[in-house]
């Protein structure tokens, strides 16, 4: 199947094969052309193809979640009712409650959690390790199908609810569920008493959870078992450290969510009392179970982003990452701390002051590894050779957003200030800065960074930079103002609000429109690249992790035949020369790393 390159270089250890200009492989086989037809994709066990399939489906989920986000912001642009002015206020509030629930649930379970690990992680993790695939390729495919089935449940539930509410149909047929209006948190006893489709939605979450677990299992096994010669843990790229830490959380925390959802089902469907006080249960117990997963899940969302940023800051500064071991250790520290801070979601629930103070203190500790990362990134930039390509703009945007998101975590982790801020727009702004701002920016940074590798084509750099700025401005306009609204006391999840909060909501909604324009600009940028992008060189950025040692896009087996990849110092850029004919970097012949 695979075409042998016209002039294969010798496979002596230490030399590299990707130095041949891409023309040498251009006519050959790559993973995209390796098989034809829909079944060659749907039944593939190639991690790169699974990564691309995740990309299409996760981006589709992002689009759907985004539509609901815009609907929510549009409802809030003025006080009163905007979305269904013809209906009575009750119907409008019902619709709003479904919209914000569906927005949150889709974005969390179907977009943010799988975004970086399942798309970028799936694609680059095995190549970074010089491996042919992940450790369990079939399980990898199974995780994608879990994602599809779980998502299908979700979309089915929400479509029924929103359509039914908009059309005013009261009794939908059984196969058309009533939507969900519980918020993505499914708090009891509301979720056990509402007549919306909680059971179906929780089944969806349950299945989506398995998708996440399977990816985590695969990543841990792959990183342990498939590292090449000369790649000790000290040469593991920082993205892999962060994906490793993420996978640990996925494996340990997600089952708790699955159990919680089962208990919720047992109470709702069978009347077994776990959370309902009338049946001898405790509603706050649900919150403990739920946040025992969902707080670590926040780190499932942010840690891979930090890994992406660590790669990009170093590559685009043309300088070895500063404090490699501290960044790697801080990923593990965040993963660990992430497990023991869940109680800070319950400071107002009436739990004992002792528990509150312990959780507050532990929460504060998360600030330390987070700050360590930011300082190390800045130290990497110091005296670098900084190039402001699109991935770097997103990476710097990430640092800005993560700094604000992190600092606004302080008053939420401290007890007395959290009592004021809890469940206000301050919290909304905070977690959007961390989850959307930071993770979305890291995701876009990573997408632009690995796009040439994944697709084999370059994108329009000018358009990429332009829309990065639009997104940056739009995002800050949308969410920064919400910090002020929340401080002033605007409660969250309100379908209608006191007119005194009008100006904050108005600016926020306009910002969200700008953000939307920027995101569609990115989509345009990518589609244009797919259609008419310039062919990408093997290494457009001069990076040294192993995925840049193979052609773009990589061949089916990841590396050209005869090339046995070995571990290299991932942040040593001396071995590459810039070749302006291909607008990329080529390996210096016979380069030997001597250490610095």
């Amino acid at each position: 199947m695979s075409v042998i390159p016209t002039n294969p270089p010798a496979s002596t250890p230490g030399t590299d094969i990707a130095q041949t200009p891409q023309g040498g492989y251009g006519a050959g086989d790559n993973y995209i052309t390796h098989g034809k037809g829909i079944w060659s994709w749907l039944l593939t066990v190639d991690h790169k193809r699974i990564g691309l399939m995740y990309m299409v489906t996760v981006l589709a989920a992002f689009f759907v979640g985004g539509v609901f986000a815009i609907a929510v912001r549009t409802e809030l642009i003025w006080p009163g009712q905007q979305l269904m002015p013809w209906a009575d206020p009750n119907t409008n509030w019902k619709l709003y409650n479904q919209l914000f629930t569906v927005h949150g649930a889709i974005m969390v379970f179907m977009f943010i959690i799988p975004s970086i690990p399942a798309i970028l992680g799936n694609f680059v993790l095995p190549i970074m390790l010089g491996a042919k695939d992940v450790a369990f390729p079939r399980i990898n495919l199974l995780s994608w199908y879990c994602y599809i089935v779980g998502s299908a449940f979700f979309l089915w539930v929400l479509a029924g609810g929103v359509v039914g509410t908009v059309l005013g149909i009261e009794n939908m047929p059984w196969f058309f569920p009533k939507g969900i209006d519980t918020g993505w948190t499914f708090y009891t006893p509301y979720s056990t008493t509402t007549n919306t489709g909680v059971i179906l939605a929780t089944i969806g979450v349950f299945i989506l959870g398995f998708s996440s677990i399977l990816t985590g299992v695969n990543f841990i096994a792959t990183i342990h078992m498939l590292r090449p010669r000369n790649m000790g843990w000290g040469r593991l790229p920082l993205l892999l450290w962060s994906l490793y830490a993420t996978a640990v959380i996925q494996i340990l925390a997600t089952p708790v969510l699955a159990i919680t959802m089962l208990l919720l089902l047992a109470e709702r469907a069978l009347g077994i009392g776990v959370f309902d006080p009338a049946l001898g249960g405790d509603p706050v117990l649900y919150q403990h179970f739920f946040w025992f997963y969902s707080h670590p899940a926040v780190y499932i969302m942010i840690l891979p982003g930090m890994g992406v940023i660590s790669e990009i800051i170093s590559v685009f500064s043309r300088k070895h990452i500063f404090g490699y071991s501290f960044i790697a250790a801080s990923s593990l520290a965040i993963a660990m701390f992430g497990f023991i801070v869940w109680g800070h979601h319950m400071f107002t629930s009436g739990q004992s002051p002792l528990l509150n103070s312990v959780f507050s203190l532990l929460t504060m500790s998360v600030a330390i590894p987070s700050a360590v990362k930011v300082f190390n990134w800045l130290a990497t930039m110091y005296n670098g050779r900084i190039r402001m390509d699109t991935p770097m703009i997103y990476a710097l945007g990430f640092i800005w957003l993560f700094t604000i998101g992190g600092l606004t975590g302080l008053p939420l982790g401290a007890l007395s200030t959290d009592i004021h801020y809890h469940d206000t727009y301050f919290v909304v702004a905070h977690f959007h800065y961390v989850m959307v701002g930071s993770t979305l920016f890291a995701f876009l940074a990573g997408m632009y960074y690995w796009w040439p590798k994944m697709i084999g084509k370059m994108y329009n750099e000018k358009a990429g930079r332009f829309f990065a700025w639009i997104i940056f401005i739009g995002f800050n306009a949308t969410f920064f103002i919400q910090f002020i609204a929340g401080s002033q006391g605007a409660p969250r999840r309100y379908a209608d609000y006191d007119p005194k909060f009008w100006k904050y909501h108005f600016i926020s909604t306009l910002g969200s429109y700008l953000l939307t324009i920027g995101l569609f600009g990115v989509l345009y940028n990518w589609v244009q690249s797919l259609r008419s992008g310039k062919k990408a060189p093997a290494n457009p950025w001069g990076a040294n992790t192993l995925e840049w040692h193979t052609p773009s896009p990589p061949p089916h087996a990841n590396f050209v035949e005869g090339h046995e990849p070995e571990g290299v110092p991932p942040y040593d850029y001396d071995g590459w020369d810039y070749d302006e004919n291909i607008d990329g970097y080529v390996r210096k012949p016979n380069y030997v790393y001597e250490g610095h």
Partner: protein
Amino acid sequence: MLTLSNFFSWLSGPWMPENAGGFADNVDFLNGFILAVSYFFVAVIAFLMIYFSIKYRQTDRADVSHGAHHSTAIEIAWTLPIVAIVTFVFVVGFTGFLDMAGPPTGGEANAFHIRVEARKWGWTFYYPNGGSSDKLYVPADRPVELTLESNDVIHSLFVPAMRIKKDVVPGRYNRMWFQPDPNLVSAENPRKELDVNCTEYCGQGHSQMNTLCIVVHESQWDDVLSEINKFNKDGLSPAEYGEQVYQVRGGCVQCHSIDGSSGTGPSWKGLYGSERPLAVTDGESTVTADDAYIYESIRYPNRKKAEGFGTASMTTYGTSQLSAGDVRAVIEYMKTLAGQDPLEAFPEDYDGKTDASEESE
């Protein structure tokens, strides 16, 4: 005189709502300190990012920078200040929180106790004299302690101007307290209105679950107490008392109109005695809205929902929320809305459990 503490509170000023006492001093001070820290770090980090990006911008694509890329001393040096800052933030937040846990021991006897019932979607406040209101009236000159009960799902009581919030969790009594700023009111301006919000998502009417906290000067406090007390049934006809239950104690007004307009629930206008088509027809397709049906629909709202309201989910009113006498009064009130004659007076022995004596149960 500008002390450090004043400076931090001043920094909080543009962010925070008005300060009406409660725990605003501690919260605003700590918030100001965190703001100062945040402004500093955001400024430094943004400056360095921009400065580095310009000063070290790439001129030669082949160029590589070689510099130190590991220094344990530097890592420790920038970690220690972070540890110090977060420790300070924790300690101040913790001490402030301990104050919130309960009224000062010495003044405990002096705290004014109010029982709060939250339901979808409204509040009822019960006072020691047996009166009740849908607004929270508090005296300005003493601490107020609230005991929070929920009739259905989790709610949360938030008074932004006091910086105080507590969840109202079914199955447990949560407590909260605050001391209003006594200078809020005076003999000339005896009442001050503050916003009260529900801050735990509780369904369709969550955004409407707002009321007012009214801080009252001592010169008017006795008047307020007797005004609240009118919600006792003494001196009222059953229908008049039923209207009070509709407005305040039961909070029925949140979902049921009396002018025929459709709300979350059916309007009560002309309801009594009419034939009601049922949402789920199980044998019978209609039911007459007589006393028995109304009683059943209050105690077991999900049994026979009327057509058009099949997906509505009403709070269940057990005997602890509405006594048999309360329900009787509501039915008499509904009669007046349907042009029928209500009872003139409560029967002598008729389940008089509508007065303060019931509260002790």
